[in-house]
């Protein structure tokens, strides 16, 4: 046991799981005691979705070093396909939880499959070119889904990408109606399911990072040519990370979609992709626990600043810039280090303890 705990990786992973589980238990207890405000309750599911999105994007950006600007595209695919599956299975599966699970798995699989298909050509590119192609992919998805019509009527299931409204027979319902997006969605998402998704995401991503393959992926990130020269098959690993990341984003998208009775394709735009990327970068590249915390904090922050009204988004921008400067800038870092040393010294003086060497 002690040996396991001494392993730094295992220890960080355990802390990550622990933080998530403790947070869930606290929130769930408060929830069941009805001590949460309506807005707090409303944040729970989207936070779970964004945490999963941030962690899955971190696999791509932080661990593999591939900049992706189209993560919201995968999220959108998961959301729309999940809604359709949930509606289709309505008469087949009675249990809401099971239906949501089916929708999430299907949404994830579809997003993963698409990730694989576009991964074949796209992963031949690198750096900023990969970024622009993923951006293009996100825009294409948004554009196509914005013209997608899916409906059920007495003739059965209809689907079309069309620039004008697809006509259904009398009594038919649209599941996805082009620019109106998905309407009349059953709200199946729940906080415990969100928690399960976060745990699954953590499990998959942490295991992948700490596996032999994960080490290979990191080697590829740090020096591709050196990694290639020792016989690591670069493309296969990048592809695996890309598909896994898309799969998880699709699942998170399905959960997210099922939390709202209506959403449109324009939700999954460039800005959403960028937001998820901000979570990842602010939390620290490759730092999974960082992604979890920063996704939560940055989702809640603009909401918490609602009281500032007109100045809300302006201040959010300022906070974003300042946080980036404080966490990354070498000069600011030096200064904060001086301050923190001083605080530390003061602390030891006050408590009368001797300064102990930091064992990191």
């Amino acid at each position, binding site marked *: 046991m002690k040996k396991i705990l001494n392993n730094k990786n295992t220890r960080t992973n355990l802390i990550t799981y622990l933080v998530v589980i403790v947070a869930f238990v606290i929130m769930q207890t408060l929830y069941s005691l009805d001590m949460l*405000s309506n807005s707090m309750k409303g*944040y729970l599911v989207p936070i779970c979705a964004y945490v999963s999105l941030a962690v899955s994007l971190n696999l791509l950006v932080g661990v593999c070093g591939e900049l992706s600007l189209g993560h919201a595209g995968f999220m959108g695919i998961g959301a729309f396909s999940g809604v359709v599956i949930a509606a289709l299975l309505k008469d087949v599966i009675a249990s809401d939880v099971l239906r949501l699970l089916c929708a999430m798995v299907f949404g994830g699989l579809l997003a993963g499959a698409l990730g694989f298909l576009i991964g074949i050509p796209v992963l031949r590119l690198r750096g900023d070119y990969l970024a622009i192609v993923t951006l293009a992919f996100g825009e294409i998805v*948004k554009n196509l889904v*914005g013209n997608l019509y899916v409906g059920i009527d007495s003739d059965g299931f209809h689907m079309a990408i069309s620039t004008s409204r697809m006509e259904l027979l009398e009594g038919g319902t649209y599941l996805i109606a082009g620019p109106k997006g998905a309407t009349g969605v059953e709200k199946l998402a729940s906080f415990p399911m969100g928690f399960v998704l976060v745990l699954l995401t953590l499990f998959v991503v942490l295991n992948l990072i700490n596996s032999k393959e994960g080490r290979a992926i990191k080697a590829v990130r740090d020096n591709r040519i050196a990694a290639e020269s020792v016989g690591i098959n670069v493309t296969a690993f990048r592809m695996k990370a890309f598909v896994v990341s898309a799969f998880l984003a699709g699942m998170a998208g399905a959960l997210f979609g099922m939390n709202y009775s209506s959403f449109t394709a324009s939700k999954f735009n460039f800005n959403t992709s960028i937001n998820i990327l901000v979570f990842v970068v602010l939390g620290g590249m490759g730092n999974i626990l960082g992604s979890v915390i920063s996704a939560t904090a940055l989702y809640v922050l603009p909401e*918490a600043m609602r009281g500032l009204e007109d100045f809300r988004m302006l201040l959010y921008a300022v906070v974003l810039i300042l946080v980036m400067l404080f966490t990354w800038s070498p000069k600011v870092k030096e200064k904060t280090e001086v301050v923190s040393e001083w605080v530390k010294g003061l602390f030891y003086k006050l408590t009368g303890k001797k300064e102990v060497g930091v064992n990191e």
Partner: protein
Amino acid sequence: MKKLIAMCLALVMALSLLAGCSSHSGSDSDALKIGMTGPLTGGNAVYGTAVQAGIEIAVEEINADPNNTLKLEFQPQDDEADGEKAVSGYNVLKDWGMQVFIGTVTSSACNAVAPLTVEDEIFLLTPSATAAEVATAGSSTFQMCFTDPNQGASAAEVIANNWPEAAIGIVYDASDDYSSGLYDGFKNKAAELSLNVVCETSFTGDTKSDLSTQVTMCKDAGADLMFLPIYYTEASYILNYASRIDYAPQYVGCDGMDGILNVEGFDTSLAEGMALLTPFDANATDEATQSFVAKYTEKTGEVPTQFAADAYDCVYAVYQAAVAAGVKASDEPADICAALIEQFTSMTFDGLTGKGMTWDSEGMISKAPAVVVIDGGIYVPMD
């Protein structure tokens, strides 16, 4: 590790801000709490801020009235015209103790919120979310504006009565609920009336910065009447570009066109002769409109559009119904909701945007769509 601690601190800060917000809002005042969400920032902010100002003016007027027994309290929340943010804003309002909801401003956000208000039994009256789905979401959801398909059909009738021989070109926003709803309604009615539509073209929210191709398509198709079921922001560009290429068709617009004369820097002579369906005319000479326009201009420095007028009417309609039903500020939202539903389906209401308005049991409004023509830079009723 340091970064982690910093992030944790940020989280704690955010949460404490949240707690702070919810605690001070718990003030148990003796006023009826009216909430609203709309885009107050972002690309659609112009519509949300208009609604907010319209509501604020009405609330101030009502509260200033010495004979009034029911005070109102108002809180706006930003939703950036996005369903997710609208739900968050709605939850914040619920925590505040909102009893009546006047919103949301845009249709797609309203589609996300309306089912929640039905579930929570909070009365919803939207000033400007025109999608038919909003009204049909439940028995407690009402609209102050026309439903899109109905308005589109009215527009087709106006064209059939005035320009029956016209070759019609249509430009609509395919990524927008409002615009495509109008287009659908228009198309069905136009087929029924056998209007001559020669060109149907569209744009999306992402491609609306350049509409020259669409105008050229209409011109090449020989359209001598352009039906523009879009907002005035984009329409001002279409008019501008058409005049540059010497193309001068007859323009017909819907209520989203109201406001085009007040776009700063816009050459209003380009809009001369345009016909539009709008429930509100800022140049109307009646006392109520004049006083509203004066207050609005003083508050915002701009001339009100139908968004602001509809919002103003929403407050007065709710107030009239609440007073008639004897609603007290201490009542539960669900009781208020039931009382208002009863009033709204039976009362008639006179406001800035029409006289003798009534609502059906679905929550859709019936008021006479006024057709105006722009003549000499102002609206003139069309005969």
